[in-house]
């Protein structure tokens, strides 16, 4: 992702989760899907919504609100699943709604203030301001847990 900084241009997909605005580097987004019913996995962590059928493969879907320790909302038809690709593994992120695609430069990004006690901050890579609104840029590697730090 930081490789992206070479040409100083960055496109972010912004979306809303529990009335907050977040964004992801658009290069890591594979596709956006409407909400479909998930098949829950037994005894999964609460942020695991379950799995869905993504054209014949089984896609795990994560409730981003719960993952970020935000109040989870009732799902409705306007919810979407953002399919992201992290090191070749696809994961679905359930969000309230997708807002926009914005182009910014690396210079527009600010490091978040160091508040390491806040569990949510570790997943926020940087902050930016668009139209006077603060947008959090998520660090996908921290959002999607690796097998090692999530012992089932």
């Amino acid at each position, binding site marked *: 992702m930081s490789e992206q900084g070479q040409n100083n241009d960055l496109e972010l997909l912004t979306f809303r989760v529990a009335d907050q605005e977040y964004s992801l580097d658009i290069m890591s987004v594979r596709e956006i899907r409407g909400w479909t*019913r998930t*098949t*829950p*996995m*037994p*005894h*999964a*962590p609460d942020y*695991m919504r379950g*799995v*869905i*059928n993504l054209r*014949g*493969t*089984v896609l*795990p879907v994560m409730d981003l609100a719960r993952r970020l320790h935000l109040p989870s909302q009732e799902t409705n038809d306007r919810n979407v699943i953002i399919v992201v690709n992290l090191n070749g*593994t696809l994961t679905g992120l359930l969000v309230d709604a997708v807002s926009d695609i914005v182009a910014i430069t690396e210079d527009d990004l600010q490091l978040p203030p160091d508040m390491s006690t806040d569990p949510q901050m570790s997943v926020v890579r940087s902050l930016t301001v668009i139209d006077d609104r603060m947008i959090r840029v998520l660090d996908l590697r921290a959002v*999607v*847990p*690796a*097998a090692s730090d*999530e012992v*089932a």
Partner: protein
Amino acid sequence: MSDQNDPMAEIRASFFIECEELLEALQDGLQEMEEAEDGSEDPETINVVFRAVHSIKGGAGAFGLEALVRFAHRYETVLDEVRNGVLHPDSDAMKLFFLAADHLSDLVRACRDETPLPEETSEELLTRLDALLGDEGGAEEVAPEDFQPMGLSLGLDLPDLDAPTANHFTIRFKPEQELFATGNEPLMLLRNLCDLGTSSVRCNLADLPALEDLAPETPYIEWLIELETEAAEPEIRDVFEFVDGLCEIEITGAAPEQGPTEIAPLPEELSKALPEEAEPEAALPETLEPQVAPPPTTAGKSEERESAKDTGEARKGGAAAAKSVVRVDLERIERLVNLVGELVINQAMLSQSLDEAGLSPHSDAMNGLEEFQRLTRDIQDSVMMIRAQPVKSLFQRMSRIVREASAAVDKDVRLITEGEGTEVDKTVIERLSDPLTHMIRNAVDHGLEGAADREKAGKPRAGTVKLTAAHRSGRVIIEVADDGAGINRKRVQEIAVSKGLIPPEIQLSDSEIDNLLFLPGFSTAKTVSNLSGRGVGMDVVKTAIQSLGGRITINSEPNKGTTFSISLPLTLAVLDGMVVNVAGETLVLPLNVVVETLSLGPDDVQMLRPGHYVVRVRGGFVPLYDLGVMLGYRQQRKTEAGAIVLLIVLEDSTRAALVIDGIQDQRQVVIKGLDDSFYRAPGIAAATILGDGQIALILDPADVIAGMGHMRGADLMLSERMIANE
């Protein structure tokens, strides 16, 4: 292999694939030689063995793999002596040959993976191989001068031996089409022959048809060579070694006959057309350019020119019934398998929507659908067959394990394999390797007694381990049987008690005791040998087999031996499943565990203790589990009365009753692997996609029950028994 764009890397990769095949042929050959001991072996067998090593050497030379060349060369030298009948390998020598073959395959792999080469083993084996040469050679043959007449006497009816230093041979050499197809060059052979002594070569064109009838790829020419040489016949045969089977060769040591009677003059048209061959009686092969030879059409790739003829030849020799085979990238097959999976799902969706449309079952659409379903199934079976591979490679690896294991515990062990041609899904073969290795080691280490004990029991000193594979009713059965002392049940029970796995006073049947071996934390080895008993027990084997959808059972008879049987599904891609509803979710259970479905009456369920229920099934009590609760889908209900229950029996004959809400269907489902990179759900083996596009989870019943943290395996069995005794 690391660099895919490098053409050299590609060639290298295919060299290593060839090597695998050659190593396989080598193993086969050695096996045959061992079986046909006391010198009665087929000379062709040793040829195959020799050529396999030789071809590996050739290819390795082309890639500059010097360590490999060096080892192969000296190995080959010894094998050559065997081939020439100078060296008669005894069983120790055969063992050494096997070791050398194992080491050769280690070297090949080390070269392929560019890992450090096990040089010390090389040296040690080479020293031993050389020792073999020295001893045997000294005993039977002293000087090469003595060797020659010996070679001749093997060689055949030579009436005429009046010139001891100059033998006279007449050689008839007629190449066949394959000789050219495999890229061999008669000129080279003739030159090599001429190097042996004074020779005159004649070309017989009698069979050459008129030009208009000439088939360009069919060789018509034969050569007659008169050779005055000090060499013996085997040396002459050596010249033709790599074209053996690709040409007609007659070597006669008698005084030259009057020459073939029908050396016809060259048809006139042809002599015009092919001026190079205009002289049928050409004195020396320098002028012989075999223009009639077709280009080497089959040698499509420019790879390994040096080794092409060797390897092609060796393969031909090795696999007599060679089928034509296509080497396909595994990824392409995976893709095909996935597509067929999609097709099956799609067909299920289609059939569901046709059902919902309320079409008459006799309508054209429904009939067509039926046909479609049949075709889909056929395609699916065919695709699965592509992935199937014979278990031979696996069994060969096991023969090596037996050799190493028996050497480590100093027991004489023979491995008998049967059903090597049995085909199983490639993934199954790969994942079977570890458990099977463990079982073989166990059989050698624990199963078989020492030689002294065996003699006391009136058995041959050498123990036998038998490895068999067979297809039986849609599954693959693999058995590991030893002819050892059988399971010492008394000791097994003592150990289980001492390890606190079972209560001391419990009475167990023989098969229940045998099954204790599969309990985690059980190991019977008195001492931890460096072979088995590394803390990895049979429970790991069992888990591995179960993860392949298989079952493992033991059968042991005192003093006769122990047999472990593994039963595996033919494929990992489809499953016969029972589709059920639980708490609003759809789940799939493997059909083979379900033995019965029941509907619970009000008095059928008894409470064992709070939260633990049993159900009475024909006089016996079976623990009852609510699937919805176990999977965390719902809270325990007050009463299970009226619920539907599946009675299941697991591999270890554990019985359990699972409460479900309803049964939908029994059908084949396509298994979709769950990406458990960040979450592995207990009790869930995989997933499948239903006709409506929804995902249903496939349960692993054994894991579900284990996941309850209540009871498992023997514990469950015992609790059942305790209940029954109450």
